[in-house]
């Protein structure tokens, strides 16, 4: 029983960074642009947040800096893809390399820097609930915020004018043009906002989850976020569920080890990636039906946008 609670609370804590990145990727992909560089945006966000938190002593300035760092990197992707018509996959990996290099260059000074991170806050009364308390109400502030982020994004996408423009950019760009909007502007906004959310995801990892910075600390979470969005059929609430599924995969290994099970760690490390592949395989055909039309073109290989 306590194993389940451990894994579940670890799932929420560990899944939060993937949740933010996944929501960011949802925004980007809904506008018709896939960002494989989400991994890089998370890296920049993680370092930006950690560095600013260390310099200012305030984790919230750190979160803001992480969002800005992720957005700036994503902006390069936006310029290449939207304005210069570059291939989306190549451009995404390109910004990942920029992020790898930049965070390695500027991150060295912060490897052991002390910070005031975001510590878990127990919500009065609720945190005392059996099981649920430990899972949901003994988390850090950024995690609490993320509980509202997915519903908020759903509302934004489906109930606001901005959301409608965003979805239209992804479904039929020519409709926007007919109505006098510029697709490019919408996509720039979507990609940059997506990068900012990924940056917050990275920030959660560095200043809340691990409270440390080390080179290449994202280790594939950004790529998982990209895959997650696809099998969540671009629905924010499903992204949330998926993110916690991965969080659970990540939490399983330490929870088992703490109980003295001797399992080769890498057999467990591979779980999130295997689970993603399996879910994609089972849901692949069905989810693709709900893919934004412009994104489907990218997936089908005709990446040169008109």
């Amino acid at each position, binding site marked *: 029983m306590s194993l389940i609670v451990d894994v579940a609370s670890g799932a929420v804590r560990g899944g939060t960074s993937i949740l933010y990145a996944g929501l960011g990727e949802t925004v980007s992909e809904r506008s018709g642009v896939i960002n*494989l560089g989400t991994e890089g945006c998370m890296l920049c966000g993680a370092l930006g947040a950690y560095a600013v938190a260390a310099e200012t002593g305030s984790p919230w300035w750190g979160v803001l800096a992480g969002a800005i760092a992720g957005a700036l990197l994503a902006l*390069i992707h936006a*310029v*290449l893809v939207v*304005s*210069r*018509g*570059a*291939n989306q*996959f*190549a*451009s995404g*990996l*390109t*910004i*990942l*390399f*920029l*992020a*790898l*290099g*930049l965070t*390695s*260059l*500027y991150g*060295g000074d912060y490897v052991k820097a002390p910070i005031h991170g975001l510590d878990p806050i127990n919500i009065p009364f609720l945190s005392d609930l059996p099981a649920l308390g430990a899972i949901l109400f003994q988390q850090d502030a950024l995690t609490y915020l993320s509980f509202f982020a997915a519903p908020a994004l759903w509302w934004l996408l489906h109930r606001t004018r901005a959301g409608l423009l965003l979805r239209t950019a992804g479904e039929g760009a020519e409709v926007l043009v007919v109505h006098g909007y510029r697709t490019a502007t919408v996509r720039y906004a979507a990609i940059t906002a997506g990068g900012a959310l990924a940056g917050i995801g990275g920030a959660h990892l560095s200043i809340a989850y691990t409270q440390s910075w080390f*080179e290449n600390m994202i*280790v*594939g979470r950004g*790529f*998982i976020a*990209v*895959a997650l969005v*696809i099998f969540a059929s671009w629905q924010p609430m499903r992204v949330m569920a998926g993110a916690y599924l991965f969080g659970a995969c990540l939490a399983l290994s330490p929870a088992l080890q703490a109980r003295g099970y001797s399992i*080769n*760690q*890498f*057999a467990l*490390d*591979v779980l999130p*990636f*295997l689970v*993603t*592949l399996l879910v*994609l*395989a*089972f849901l*692949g*055909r069905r989810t*693709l039906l709900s893919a934004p039309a412009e994104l489907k*073109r990218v*997936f*089908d*290989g*005709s*990446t*040169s946008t*008109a």
Partner: protein
Amino acid sequence: MTAEVLIREPEVLVPRRPPALLTAALRWAAALLGAIVVFGAVLITKGANPLTVFVDAWRETFMTAPSLQDVIVKAGPFALAALAAVVPARAGLVNVGGEGQVLIGAVAAGGTALSLDQHVPGGVVMVCMVVAGMAAGAAWAGLAAALRLTVKVNEAVSTLLLNYVALDVLLFLIYQPWKDPNGSGQPASRPLAEGAQLPQLPGSTIHIGVLLTVLSAAGVWVVLTRSMWGFKLAAVGGNQEAARRAGFPVGRLLLSAMLVGGALAGLGGVIHFAGVEHQLRPGMVSNIGYVGFLASWLARHKPLAVLAASFVFAGLTVAGDSLQIDAGLPAATSNILTGLVLVAVLGWASKGSRA
């Protein structure tokens, strides 16, 4: 339905004029220069003098024989990983899984070596390693192709995820079953028997894997431009629907393109293992596949240009080491220049010929 998106400009009807070529060359030069200038500015923010850094890095990378040989040796796996992206790209597929395919090729070569190199002559081990590595790489890429063909999972996403699976396979094996009991305690497999290590050209560190790489690139060029298979791949890549209506076996062509690509990346893993590393260890394949993917874009998916692009990126990698030694900057700093070169090329050099 997608036909209108896929129509390409009929290249034959638009003759290339010399002025266009000249402006293209100028655009490339300007793009690369821009990348170097931006990188210089980044270096200044860290208190390094870009001019000294560039001069030192240039001298230590390309002007001494050992480091130049190092560049050539490093370029081999990069080029094979790049070819692993080039062949599928011809059919319109995006193989971002070079990293995993190189890894799994190295693992297969390592496993083959562990079980054979004490029992049979070195030459036989080498042949077996090449076969096993190529088969493993092909299988790894084939998995992604199968997912695309049967359940329509986008191959860029699945190959990326498989990279991490391959890494965990390697780590799993060398932390337990294949760990060298006589080693230093570091997780690594037993070193490859000397007779089974790829022979080097006399008086140099360049091993015959480099030769295999050049032959592979030439082979890919011939097959893509001169064979029926290459023609059909290009047809599928150009307009899948038209290719299907022309009666081409589209599914089989897509699968074969991925298999060949994976096999080439697997070969990259083999020569990296048997020519350079000689044992499996964590971090042995750091980013070879990703750099290869970017090299294929730098080369605009042309098999022979891939060799040059890989040489450039190998040079940047080796220069990264000199950055670390001379300027005290982390070796990964050179990734910034790699990224900037690609930004320049994707954004400003190859306009008008997007693939």
